């Protein structure tokens, strides 16, 4: 085999190898999205409870992903969580009274932040904080509240029937 042919083949091999790495990076993984998420602007929101929210979870409005969660911190002074979100630059007309809530995709899915547009005509800027937030639903709390209400309701009924009997 001529060394020229060998060299061409090796060059081709290395080229295909790097093409494959590039494909894996851009098409299979999230690197393609990450490069765009470096731009955009940052919003903050305080939540009493972020549940299972993870960094890089989507921030969506009307079901469309418009940004990603960048970081989640605990605020020592106020005992709540500060979530930093990066919103894509083309969505720069979010009203100032937009509210954020932590939602779950499906019954067992990942948690994400859902934004609901407000009515004001002034728009959120880089570094602004969302005032209206709703915490994640914690299943245990929901169940205990339900049971508690049920028990309370049961007592009231019992009281009512006892009162009726005494009459």
């Amino acid at each position, binding site marked *: *085999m001529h*060394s020229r042919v*060998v*060299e061409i*083949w*090796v060059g*081709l*091999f*290395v080229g*295909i*190898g*790097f*093409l*494959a*790495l590039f*494909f*894996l*990076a851009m*098409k*299979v*993984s*999230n*690197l*393609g*999205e*990450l490069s765009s998420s470096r731009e955009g602007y940052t919003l903050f929101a305080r939540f009493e409870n972020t549940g299972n929210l993870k960094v*890089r979870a*989507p921030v969506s409005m009307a079901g469309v992903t418009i940004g990603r969660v960048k970081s989640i911190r605990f605020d020592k002074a106020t005992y709540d969580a500060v979530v930093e979100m990066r919103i894509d630059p083309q969505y720069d007309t979010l009203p100032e009274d937009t509210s954020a809530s932590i939602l779950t995709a499906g019954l067992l899915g990942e948690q994400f932040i859902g934004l609901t547009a407000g009515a004001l005509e002034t728009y959120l800027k880089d570094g602004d904080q969302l005032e209206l937030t709703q915490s994640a639903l914690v299943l245990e709390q929901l169940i205990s509240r339900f049971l508690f209400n049920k028990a309370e309701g049961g007592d009231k009924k019992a009281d009512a029937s006892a009162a009726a009997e005494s009459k």
Partner: protein
Amino acid sequence: MLQGWGIWALGGVQRIGRAHIFLAHVLLGLPGLLLRLRLLVREMYVVGVLSMLLIAISGLFVGMVLALQGHNVLSEFDAEQSLGVLVAASLVRELGPVVTALLFSGRAGSALTAEIGLMKATEQLSGMEMMAVDPIKRVVAPRFFAGLLSMPLLAALFSMVGVLGGYFVGVGLLGVDEGAFWAQMQAKIDFEEDIINGIIKSLVFGLIVTWIAVFEGYDAVPTAEGVSRATTRSVVYSAFAVLGSDFVLTALMLRGE
């Protein structure tokens, strides 16, 4: 009998020690190799280019089987859209590096062992030493670095072809939604945690497989039987070492999550 065990254990420890000194010697051959890149290119042809077709075809079939099996299970939960994640995650994290390393040790590693072992058996290596040419630098180092460089590229090729195979079966044959296939994949596969870790794995496996292959060849008993036994050992030890170190690497990589 006890003495037999002792001899066996001491021999094993000695071989491991020799293997490490040998590796250090090979790594010292790198500067000299950079001056003669032509040798490296030649060996990359033998080790990498000739393995390419095997790796690509295996990857294609592995990806297609993954898509078939995954679709079968996922459709029970109405979660066919996650097929892309399943195929890509299992290929990039595990199957790509591991299966490539196993195939690579069978295709290229055994050939390296047999070649170097035969050179030793036919006294070409001692001949080189007589001519004051260091056989480790001239013969072993190019083969070792060619294997080390080829493995990550081959593993990436394997994963890429596998994902495409999964795409053809999943989207083409089984009717999974194309947008969901790619979008869920991109949403769930992390560049640093999955792709980079896969590349690290394939680099480590490349080191292990080629190290074992060239060492077994260099350390072979210089007879026809010795070379044949060395070739078998090369493939068997490589498989053990790859699977064992895969467990350790996975445990280390998952610990952070």
